[in-house]
């Protein structure tokens, strides 16, 4: 069978068919979808012309789900049921979420499984489900715009996303009904968007991606050689972004206006908003008028730059570290790509340019650049460009290891190792006749178990009883091209093999995902059924009303008593059917009533015509 399937890589079975594929930038604050149309990659707009979809999902009591701008509008009024920044919760435990995001307005439920749930009026939802609603919305937008069925999608994730977070992202995509070609690192997508793989003068050079968003900062170094991108290193700060710029201006405003906002949330918010306005204005002008309450003043570029300098310097420290991790010299860096809305600030561009000693690339809208790159890669993976030799190689962002004696961690795969990778490590028993062994999989750079993140823990049983040190237990780590880990363990000295495959915690199991997909399909089916029933009931009411008003008007004149009884019987039938909760029963009863009333309708029409004609005549006579 395999012999019949030999084909060259990149060659699709139907080479002339254009497959619809999309790239999605699933962002913390905003999400976008892009696709290649007529050879050109661009982001797709919704029916209102908006490209950015706020990553906000609101759940209503009747089960309706609202995504985007409308949901965002409810953040002020219906906070508990309106989930923003779900990306921060993906692949995390409740305890981690609380430390990550400080005080959150949501009620988290720790479940028996591993995925934390948020309580809403429409029931409990996971961050995976919330993200899948965003993806569904973008998928629909793409299907409507592109006019066809999507073959696959590329979804971007931050380069630092760990295994659990990548798994959760992929789960969300599956739940949204997307076929995921690949999870792509955001910085790599940005480099692809600039077509750096096409530039010969960049070949075999290093590219730096500086991504300063609203709440996060990431820097990545990529090497490009003959169309192959390698992520050399990544770094950043998950709690530093443009919002911090607003914050320092807000503090300045409060100090200058001699006000304190510690007790006054409204004042603090006003200061933040004014800070943001001033920041944006200073991208185009040297000085801006500012006010806070009664207070008025001016704020200029020099003051702004001085305020944000420590923050920008912090990002440059992370850049320095990324350069060292990549084991390259700053001079090797050929291009610097700017990503994220906060890179619109001229001073950021200036300092980044000075650090890398070259002007950064800023031509593509920094909000859209990642989605555009993902769209290009999706088009490629769909097989629409069999001649392209672009290939994206990734590394794992964090080391993977096992717990060993004394609560220490032995690294099995070091961070920045190119993936996919498979690596085996041998262990042995330390007690005579030991028949089981606990295998604890950890992620992180620290030496002790507590300081790292626990991904999975499982027991390997059925080890044949032997003296200590005789058993040979081989633990194999396998990381695929998306950065997802599987762990296998087997005892191989006696040929008795036991092996276990684990999926990391904080993701969903395959059966859980299937269950959710099935539930959502059943819900959808139920929704359709509900709608049909409601429509039938409305029709029934309309029929009943028509009959009642007709009979009230002329039943006594046009109908005999048995005829009247016949119609009233049919009426009772319909009223009963209407309460049956079954659309078909209702529709049937409507039909029965209509059939029973046929003769009456005919008689009424005749009588109406006679009346109309006679009436008509009378009017004519009188005029």
């Amino acid at each position, binding site marked *: 069978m*395999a012999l019949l*399937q030999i084909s060259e*890589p*990149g060659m*699709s079975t139907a080479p002339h068919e254009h*497959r619809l594929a999309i790239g999605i930038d699933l962002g913390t604050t905003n999400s976008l979808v892009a696709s290649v149309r007529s050879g050109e990659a661009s982001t797709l707009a919704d029916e209102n012309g908006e490209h950015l979809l706020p990553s906000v999902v609101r759940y209503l009591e009747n089960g309706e789900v609202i995504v985007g701008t409308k949901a965002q509008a409810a953040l002020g009024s219906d906070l508990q049921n309106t989930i923003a920044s779900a990306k921060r919760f993906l692949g995390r435990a409740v305890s981690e979420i609380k430390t990550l995001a400080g005080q959150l307005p949501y009620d988290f439920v720790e479940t028996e499984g591993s995925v934390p749930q948020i309580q809403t009026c429409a029931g409990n939802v996971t961050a995976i489900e919330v993200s899948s609603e965003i993806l569904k919305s973008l998928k629909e937008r793409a299907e409507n715009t592109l006019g066809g069925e999507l*073959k*696959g999608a590329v979804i971007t994730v931050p380069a630092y996303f760990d295994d659990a977070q990548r798994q959760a992202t992929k789960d969300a995509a599956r739940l949204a009904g997307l076929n995921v*070609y*690949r999870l792509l690192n955001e910085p790599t997508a940005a480099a692809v968007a600039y077509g750096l793989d096409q530039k010969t003068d960049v070949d075999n050079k290093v590219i730096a991606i500086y991504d300063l968003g609203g709440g996060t900062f990431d820097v990545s170094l990529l090497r490009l*050689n*003959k*169309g*192959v991108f390698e992520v050399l290193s990544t770094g950043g700060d998950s709690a530093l972004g443009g919002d911090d710029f607003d914050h320092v201006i807000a503090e300045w405003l409060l100090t200058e206006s001699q006000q304190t906002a510690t007790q006054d949330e409204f004042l603090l918010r006003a200061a933040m908003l004014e800070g943001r306005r001033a920041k944006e204005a200073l991208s185009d002008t040297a000085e801006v008028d500012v006010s806070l309450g009664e207070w008025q003043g001016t704020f200029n570029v020099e003051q702004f730059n001085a305020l944000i300098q420590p923050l920008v310097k912090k990002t440059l*420290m992370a850049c*320095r*570290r990324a350069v*060292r991790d990549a084991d390259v010299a700053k001079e090797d860096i050929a291009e610097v790509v700017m990503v994220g809305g906060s890179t619109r600030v001229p001073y950021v561009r200036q300092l980044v340019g000075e650090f890398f000693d070259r002007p950064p690339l800023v031509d593509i809208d920094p909000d859209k650049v990642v989605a555009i790159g993902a769209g290009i890669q999706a088009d490629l*993976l*769909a*097989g629409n460009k069999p001649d392209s*030799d672009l*290939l*994206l*190689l990734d590394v794992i962002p964090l080391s993977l290891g096992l717990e060993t004696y004394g609560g220490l961690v032995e690294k099995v795969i070091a961070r920045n*190792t*190119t*993936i*996919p*990778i*498979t*690596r085996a490590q041998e262990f042995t028993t330390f007690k005579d006749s030991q028949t089981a062994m606990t295998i604890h999989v950890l992620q992180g750079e620290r030496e002790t178990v507590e300081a790292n993140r626990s991904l999975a823990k499982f027991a390997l049983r059925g080890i044949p009883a032997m003296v200590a040190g005789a058993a040979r237990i081989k633990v194999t780590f*396998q990381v*695929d*091209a998306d950065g997802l880990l599987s762990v296998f363990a087997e005892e191989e000295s006696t040929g008795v093999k036991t092996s276990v495959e684990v999926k990391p915690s904080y993701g969903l199991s395959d059966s859980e995902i299937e269950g959710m997909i099935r539930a959502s399909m059943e819900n959808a089916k139920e929704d359709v059924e509900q709608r049909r029933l409601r429509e039938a009931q409305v029709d029934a009411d309309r029929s009943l009303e028509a009959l009642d008003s007709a009979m009230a008007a002329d039943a006594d004149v046009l109908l005999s008593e048995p005829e009247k009884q016949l119609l009233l019987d049919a009426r009772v039938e319909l009223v009963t059917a209407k309460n049956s909760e079954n659309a078909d029963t209702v529709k049937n009863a409507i039909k029965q009533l209509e059939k029973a009333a046929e003769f009456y309708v005919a008689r009424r029409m005749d009588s109406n015509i006679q009346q109309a004609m006679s009436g008509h005549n009378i009017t004519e006579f009188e005029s």
Partner: protein
Amino acid sequence: MSIDFKQNYFELFELPQQYEIDKGALATAFRQLQAAHHPDRFASGSDEDRRVAQQVTSFINTGQETLSSPRLRARYLLSLADVSFDDERDTTSDMMFLMSQMERREQLEQVTQSDDPLDAIDAISSEVKADYEGLQNAFEEAYDAGDLEEAKQVVLKLKFFERLMGEIKQLEEKLEDEV
């Protein structure tokens, strides 16, 4: 499309089986192999195609990592010559070497007290790198002369240096965080 998993990494990348390595040639061969076998090439292919691709690229990646690292490459050459390593027990007994390692560690501990810790650490770092390169030359000499036992001793010393360089890096990161 699979490859021969029995070939050694030098054969895989079509490089001569020796310590000195042409990094450019390794990088080029690595990328060519990746371009042909990476799972992305089979994104719309069958599950089996992708599984095979996963295994093949894992092999390629491990090979590239082994040949790129000065210590792993040295160790790999010895393993091809049937010199085995016992990670639990093997260690160097060269007292002079151990003394110099301790000295380096003491220098590192004093870095935080210096006026410009980042400069101080940069200085230590470049000295350590020079010594590390000296050891690599020593390995090459022993290996080429067929003194595999001496070559093994050098590999064990290289491991000490890797740990030391790891510590330098950690300290650098810590200092940068404090800035």
